[in-house]
């Protein structure tokens, strides 16, 4: 497939994605699909940011929701305290707060590897969660932060379901482009180097600790933006946004989709959203076990399809082609 053709197709897909509410309106009056897709895209942005760490840099973080939550709270609180709802300000606050938190936590965790790194990120993120849960004065504590303002850009109000979706979709396309560009850049290649053989990278002259820290902060910032979008979508921030459950969710999404690929986190969010939103409506109401189903699917992938859906797809494609 010639590059120009591929680019045209991708651009067309992106446009179709962003304008989804408009061309789907005839058969989508309840906006169920729009909301579902919107939330899936927020998860996709979140997962893409985590994949920078897990898939590219080889840093398995189980505390990524701390930055998602921080961004969500920052957007909501900035809107309320600064009496503004202008997106550049609130999104900027979200990115800034998430980045700072990622810097603080990053400095502490970046020198560890593998399982120890995983545990440290988990423990530190849980502490952030607990602070959010108990600091009622600032975050609303266990009641959460309600009354998150309407996102505005100049005079355009993005809080209608359609426009909110468009905002999320555009951010998703931007995030996907960013990750795609990163993967092909010297930076992305250096991250892979750190993942594959950190000792050798240091022997080549790379300051690997700083590389990992930069990846950690970058990933945290993007997660913060995803969190802000989530806050605007639901007009509400709960402490659970920063909790272990949310970190696990993102991790599951990345792994099940296929770590280290662009399509992985995206496919993963589609599957996870399906399990969380669509499956419950297929089961009897009293049987609320979507989390258990997610857990089982995750176990199955870890045991039998570690490379995720994208990896499976590639394997099948290669096998078919060699016939």
């Amino acid at each position, binding site marked *: 497939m010639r590059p120009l053709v591929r680019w045209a197709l991708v651009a067309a897909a992106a446009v179709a994605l962003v304008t989804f509410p408009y061309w789907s309106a005839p058969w989508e009056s309840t906006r169920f699909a729009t909301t579902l897709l919107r939330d899936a895209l927020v998860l996709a942005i979140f997962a893409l940011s985590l994949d920078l760490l897990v898939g590219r840099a080889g840093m398995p973080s189980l505390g990524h929701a701390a930055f998602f939550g921080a961004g969500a709270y920052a957007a909501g609180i900035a809107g309320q305290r600064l009496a503004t709802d202008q997106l550049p300000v609130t999104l900027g606050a979200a990115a800034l707060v998430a980045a700072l938190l990622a810097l603080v936590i990053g400095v*502490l965790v970046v020198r560890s590897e*593998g399982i*120890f790194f995983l545990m440290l990120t988990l423990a*530190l993120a849980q*502490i952030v969660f607990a602070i959010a849960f108990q*600091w009622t004065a600032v975050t609303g504590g266990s009641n959460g932060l309600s009354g998150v303002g309407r996102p505005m850009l100049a005079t355009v109000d993005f809080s209608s379901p359609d426009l909110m979706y468009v905002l999320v979709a555009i951010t998703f396309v931007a995030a996907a482009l960013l990750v795609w560009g990163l993967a092909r850049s010297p930076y992305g290649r250096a991250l892979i180097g750190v993942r594959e053989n950190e000792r050798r990278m240091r022997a080549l002259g790379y300051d690997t600790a700083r590389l990992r820290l930069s990846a950690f902060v970058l990933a945290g910032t993007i997660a913060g933006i995803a969190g802000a979008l989530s806050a605007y979508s639901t007009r509400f921030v709960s402490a659970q946004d920063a909790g272990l459950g949310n970190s696990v969710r993102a991790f599951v999404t990345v792994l099940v989709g296929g770590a280290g690929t662009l399509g992985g986190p995206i496919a993963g969010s589609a599957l996870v959203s399906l399990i969380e939103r669509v499956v419950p409506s297929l089961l009897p109401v009293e049987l*609320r*076990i979507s989390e*258990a189903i997610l857990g089982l699917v995750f176990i199955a992938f870890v045991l039998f399809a570690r490379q995720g859906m994208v990896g499976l797809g590639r394997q099948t494609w290669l096998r078919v082609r060699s016939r």
Partner: protein
Amino acid sequence: MSLELVFQQALNGLSFGALLFILASGLSLVFGMMDVVNLAHGAFYMLGAYVALSVVQLTGSFWLAMLAAPLALALLGLVLEPLLLRRLRGRHLDQVLVTIGASLVIVDIIGQLWGREVRSLSAPPGLDGSVALIGGVYPVYRLFVIAFGVALAVAMSVVYRRTKIGMLIRAGVEDAEMLGALGVNTNRLFASTFATGAALAGLAGVIAAPVFGVQPGMDTDPGLLYSLVVVVVGGLGTLSGAVAGSLLVGPADTFGKVLFQDVALAVIFAIVALVLLLKPTGLLGRIRVTR
């Protein structure tokens, strides 16, 4: 703060520390032997509490629950280890991931079977009173928890140092592969270790129930969060690490909550951060190859 209050809070800190020890020791044991961080440990803790709930409902006996819950968890551990972990031998990160999946399943099923409301379990008759202590009255049960924690620590220490099993464990913590080469059935060893860790978590669930209640979310708070903080601070894989960590985190958390209230967790954060900066493997931990 009056002296009586300080004393009371000190006892609270100690009883919390004792609880933390019972909880964290299982996590530390499994890691020391198998290099697996069992992230379903909090779920095991939660399951222990809920099983105790049912046993007490059925039989009225707290003591029976204290036997039944660890037993039930041990059985679960014996099933899960060969099912999930054995085929991932050597892939430590994946083993951890699989325990995450198990945790998701267990917690959701608990909610489905027992409901998602807040429940409670009272201390057994005999331990549910208060005792006159310096400057006031203090719940007997909390004193029991302290005593139990100390007794367990001593018992584990004795087993660890003086028995054949303890020797196997110590050897396994050093080099499990070597044990296999020497003819020890490592499959059985790992399964029983995992089961023991699960049983300890379940035991902690029962004992903690009268103090912390039984409710959704207990698998992470206090379950997993506190066990992880204890072992990160105290040092992973060693008994003394679990003791040191619990003795440090228990009182710190209690006093933190009294002094700083809303942001007491910041105190814990500060301790964790300090320890990590000074000694990344925890106070009494061992350096491990972690990939």
